[in-house]
């Protein structure tokens, strides 16, 4: 195909040259060129290899509907699958073709084309089944992955996008004639209007074709300039250009993506694209139509393109891709291409129309006659032939004779479809138009208005009345626009979906989906095999499942299927068009919610101290908690945890417990409320005392635990697990509002307002005395499970005597801002007593030695307090609390429920692991009855061996017996089932 530059225009200036690289070779284009127009200018027609058969492919369209010309933009983090027909070039742009190896001209994968008779519909489903399931993972999948697909994933992607929200009365999608007229109606009205167009310039077919000769007696381009100026001057209308609406959600919620660097290289660190989230009262769809192709043998050869696309290259890019294209059409839409060619001093090599001479528009006839264009009416193209490009076509004329025509370009038109994607996304209904042979919007489901060709009005006769009628509800001024056409024709089309090949051959291919390499033969085969429902057929053949969603071909597939099944197209139905309209990068969806903002980290007020003191962190929900502290770089986690826990047992340790959830509950009826929320009874509890409490779900299962401090009957402070804080507060609020609205009670989270230090170990009292000299920490003055308010250096603090380690311990609650200072003070006074920080892992080990559970580790939402052996925590005299009734359900009183027990290896040197199953037999003979599993397991420096907590069936009555833990190597380890307490069973150290 030899292209020719026409006159330059306002979009392309021939004096502004731009250089770019395609597959490593330098070429020149002009400012305003897309990759496709620039490649065509350089007579490059082969731009990629197809998905499955690796067939040579060229540029098929001039817009977003492009199925073939997908390229990799090396100069933009190697962005793959970019449509060459919309991406603008810039100086220094580097582009590569896709899906070829070693080169585009000599592609090894094209051997697939030879084997193509076996790659038919369902090939993968049928072939890669056996002989062993490992074959899929190790052989088939890697092979298929290498061979198939389009571009390669981008590298080191650093794109930045942002999100902008809009709240408007009216959104007009599409800035063509109808969009502009609609916008014009709203100039200086009281409506907030958003006008969105995908292109850089508004105008639609005024820019893309020579269809219109004048508007209001003005040159179309002059009218356009004036109208855009008027709209821009109107204060109530905002125009978004380079913005594609991809999604039409419920309640008129639209998603649109704006390219911020059209025609220039995105600047690193700057926002590349903006995702617009639009909420609108009404949506006016003026997004036009899409031309479809036709199926015949080798309809995928480079050099074949849609006729309206050819015209768009001429009008917008000042470029005729070929000097003498052949035109093949079944409708009147390609008339204007003939007009444009002749106007530019060019001439079609031949005009072939499947319609009869009487149906062809008279003025087209005149034009063709006057210019001696060979005309074939009642004729069809049987096939196109050539090596990597179109060289000749075979035409069957009205007499049935075959004519060979040499050509370098073929323009196709199979009719036009309203672009109904957005309309169907909005859940509007479509209806098949038997005359125009396309689906058209019928009933909208939302406040959606369609205008122009988007509504199926392919002629301009009713332009004014249609807009005036549909915009009546807005009471805006009426339009009276006078429009003259160059090709004065009513849209006319004759049914033609496919031309069968001249010679039947296994290798003959008529494509129905260019991007996914689906042939019309695949459609036939799918129907023969019973996949005759359109949604099944789509998935079985992958028809219209590419990134283009079959924009130029899906209606043709419906037509072929309806003929094969001898059904009306309406009965065949259509597959559902799903958002997004065109691929949308993940970076745009993520917006600023990425990198450090993806899942914000929560840090305790002591975080910086941890950083300086060798803390290795663990994620607990969003919190960063010290997991353990390394005293030097060589210390292993095991060694650190052993050292930390030993130190707590022998001296004293300090844990940053600031992440624990803290909820303050206040109000006249706070006591009654707490009695209803937790299993425990708080009625007889003394003021200033604290209690370990459980919260259940209504199903009776343990949901959270914590310590409740009773300040008075009207004032409590509850702690929750780190991960459960939000859920517990939510649960309290829900019940206070929905079940017990009569109770006067209020609750609020104070988690971040207070830091918490847990100090425990035999030397803790000495440290506390030194750190807070004005407080009496004696057992009599400050007994176990009590708390006191104090002031320390002007800071109000609360100290609770409680312990999660089994040692003497205190928890100090300090307003967050004052916490680091007090933490430092405790560190310095504690030094002489051997005080050392410990992390969550040592804390877990220490609490497990005492048999204290962790909700979510030792419980899993199917464990009741009774299963845990915590029946003493249930306020049995209470009439009601969350989940009370469930504790006597037939399921919860079963004897063989899984219950919490302790496990130690019978041979003390044996190791145990979390997740091991507990079984009764030494030998593993399947099926193995499983009793339960180990939920927590550690090596205890105090005991000198491994120990574990487990939940096993009927566990409580098995205490004292022996069992086995299954190992990953199909063996077993003998274990003793014991009480889940391994240390200081009498709690002497706790209350010392």
């Amino acid at each position: 195909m030899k292209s020719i530059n026409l006159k330059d225009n306002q979009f392309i200036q021939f004096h502004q040259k731009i250089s770019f690289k395609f597959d490593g070779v330098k070429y020149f284009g002009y400012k305003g060129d897309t990759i496709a127009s620039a490649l065509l200018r350089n007579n490059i027609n082969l731009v990629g290899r197809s998905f499955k058969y690796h067939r040579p492919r060229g540029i098929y369209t001039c817009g977003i509907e492009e199925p073939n010309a997908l390229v990799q933009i090396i100069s933009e983090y190697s962005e793959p699958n970019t449509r060459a027909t919309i991406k603008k070039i810039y100086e220094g742009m580097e582009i590569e073709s896709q899906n070829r190896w070693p080169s585009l001209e000599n592609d090894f994968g094209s051997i697939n084309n030879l084997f193509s008779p076996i790659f038919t519909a369902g090939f993968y489903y049928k072939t890669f089944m056996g002989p062993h399931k490992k074959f899929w993972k190790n052989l088939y999948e890697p092979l298929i992955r290498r061979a198939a697909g389009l571009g390669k994933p981008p590298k080191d992607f650093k794109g930045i996008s942002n999100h902008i929200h809009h709240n408007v009365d009216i959104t007009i999608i599409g800035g063509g004639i109808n969009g502009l007229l609609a916008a014009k109606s709203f100039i200086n009205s009281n409506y907030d209007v958003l006008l969105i167009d995908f292109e850089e310039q508004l105008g639609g077919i005024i820019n893309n074709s020579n269809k219109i000769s004048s508007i209001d007696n003005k040159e179309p381009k002059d009218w356009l300039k004036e109208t855009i100026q008027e709209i821009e001057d109107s204060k109530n209308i905002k125009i978004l250009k380079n913005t594609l609406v991809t999604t039409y959600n419920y309640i008129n919620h639209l998603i649109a993506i704006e390219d911020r660097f059209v025609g220039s290289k995105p600047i690193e660190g700057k926002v590349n694209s903006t995702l617009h989230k639009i909420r609108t009262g009404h949506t006016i769809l003026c997004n036009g139509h899409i031309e479809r192709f036709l199926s015949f043998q080798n309809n995928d050869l480079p050099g074949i393109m849609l006729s309206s696309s050819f015209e768009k290259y001429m009008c917008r890019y000042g470029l005729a891709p070929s000097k003498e294209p052949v035109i093949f059409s079944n409708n009147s839409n390609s008339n204007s291409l003939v007009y444009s060619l002749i106007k530019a001093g060019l001439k079609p090599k031949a005009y072939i129309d499947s319609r009869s001479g009487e149906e062809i528009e008279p003025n087209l006839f005149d034009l063709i006659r006057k210019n001696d264009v060979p005309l074939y009416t009642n004729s069809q193209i049987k096939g196109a032939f050539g090596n990597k490009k179109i060289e000749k076509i075979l035409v069957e004329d009205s007499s049935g004779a075959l004519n060979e025509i040499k050509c370098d370009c073929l323009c196709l038109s199979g009719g036009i479809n309203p672009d109904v994607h957005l309309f169907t996304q909005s859940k509007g209904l479509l209806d098949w138009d038997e005359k125009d042979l396309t689906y058209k919007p019928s009933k909208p489901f939302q406040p959606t208005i369609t205008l122009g060709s988007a509504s199926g009005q392919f002629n301009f006769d009713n332009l004014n009345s249609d807009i005036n009628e549909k915009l009546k509800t807005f009471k805006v001024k009426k339009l009276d626009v006078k429009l003259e056409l160059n090709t004065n024709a009513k849209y006319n089309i004759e049914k033609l979906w496919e031309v069968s090949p001249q010679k039947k051959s296994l290798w003959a291919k008529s494509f129905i989906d260019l991007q996914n390499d689906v042939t019309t033969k695949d459609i036939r085969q799918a129907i023969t095999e019973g996949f005759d429902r359109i949604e099944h057929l789509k998935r079985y053949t992958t028809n219209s499942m590419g990134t283009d969603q079959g924009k130029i071909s899906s209606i043709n597939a419906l037509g072929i299927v309806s003929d094969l099944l001898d059904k009306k197209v309406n009965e065949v139905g259509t597959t559902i068009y799903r958002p997004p309209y065109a691929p949308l990068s993940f970076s745009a969806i993520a917006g600023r919610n990425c990198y450090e903002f993806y899942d914000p980290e929560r840090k305790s007020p002591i975080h910086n101290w941890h950083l300086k003191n060798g803390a290795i962190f663990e994620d607990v929900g969003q919190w960063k908690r010290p997991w353990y502290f390394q005293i030097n770089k060589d210390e292993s986690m095991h060694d650190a945890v052993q050292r930390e826990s030993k130190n707590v047992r022998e001296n004293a340790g300090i844990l940053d417990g600031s992440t624990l959830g803290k909820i303050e509950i206040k109000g006249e009826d706070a006591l009654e409320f707490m009695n209803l929320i937790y299993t425990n009874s708080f009625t007889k509890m003394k003021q200033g005392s604290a209690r370990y409490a459980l919260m259940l779900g209504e199903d009776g299962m343990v949901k959270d635990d914590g310590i409740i401090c009773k300040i008075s009957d009207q004032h409590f402070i509850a702690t929750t697990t780190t991960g459960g804080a939000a859920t517990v507060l939510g649960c309290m609020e829900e019940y206070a509002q929905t079940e017990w609205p009569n109770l006067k009670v209020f609750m609020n989270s104070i988690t971040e307002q207070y830091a918490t230090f847990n100090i425990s170990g035999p030397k803790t009292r000495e440290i506390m005395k030194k750190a807070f000299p004005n407080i009496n920490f004696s057992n009599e003055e400050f007994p176990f499970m009590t708390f006191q308010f104090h002031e320390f250096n002007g800071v109000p603090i609360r100290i609770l005597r409680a312990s999660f380690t089994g040692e003497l311990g205190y928890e100090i609650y300090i307003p967050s801002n004052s916490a680091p200072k007090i933490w430092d003070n405790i560190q310095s006074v504690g030094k002489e007593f051997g005080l050392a920080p410990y992390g969550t892992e040592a804390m877990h080990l220490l609490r497990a030695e005492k048999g204290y559970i962790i909700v979510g580790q030792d419980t899993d939402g199917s464990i009741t307090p009774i299963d845990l052996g915590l029946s003493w925590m249930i306020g049995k005299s209470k009439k009601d609390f969350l989940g009370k009734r469930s504790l006597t359900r037939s399921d919860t009183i079963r004897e063989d429920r899984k219950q919490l027990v302790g496990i130690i290896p019978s041979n003390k040197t044996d190791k145990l692991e979390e997740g091991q199953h507990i079984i009764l037999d030494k030998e593993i003979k399947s099926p193995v009855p499983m009793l339960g599993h180990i939920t927590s397991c550690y090596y205890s420096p105090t005991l000198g061996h491994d120990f574990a907590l487990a939940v096993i069936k009927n566990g409580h009555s098995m205490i004292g017996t022996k069992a086995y833990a299954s190992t990953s190597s199909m063996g077993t380890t003998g274990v003793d089932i014991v009480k889940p307490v391994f240390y200081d069973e009498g709690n002497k150290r706790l209350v010392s």
Partner: protein
Amino acid sequence: MLIINCPYCGPRDQSEFSNGGEAHVKRPDGSKEIGDREWGEYVFIRANPKGLFYERWVHTHGCRKWFNCVRDTSTDEILVTYKLDEKKPNLNNFKSVVKTPSGEPEVGSGNFTVEK
């Protein structure tokens, strides 16, 4: 994304809210004897109709208030929202408002985009 009309704050985006399942499910009075079946139904059984449905929502990232609504589960349309202490609206009042996007054609392979 839906717009939900919080009875306290006004219309807001759905992302500010959390769904709380069926509304008007009464928690049995704990001070009285409750049968296994009655309690079991309260804990485990919820209606799941296609069509009009009383539903609870909470304005999680807003006023944190719970409220009720009537939602058409076939269209997602929320027909009315009301405070917890307000009387529940009669579903018959909404019959005329119910729309199904497409009906369910006998032919057309379960796609609902084509008018029958």
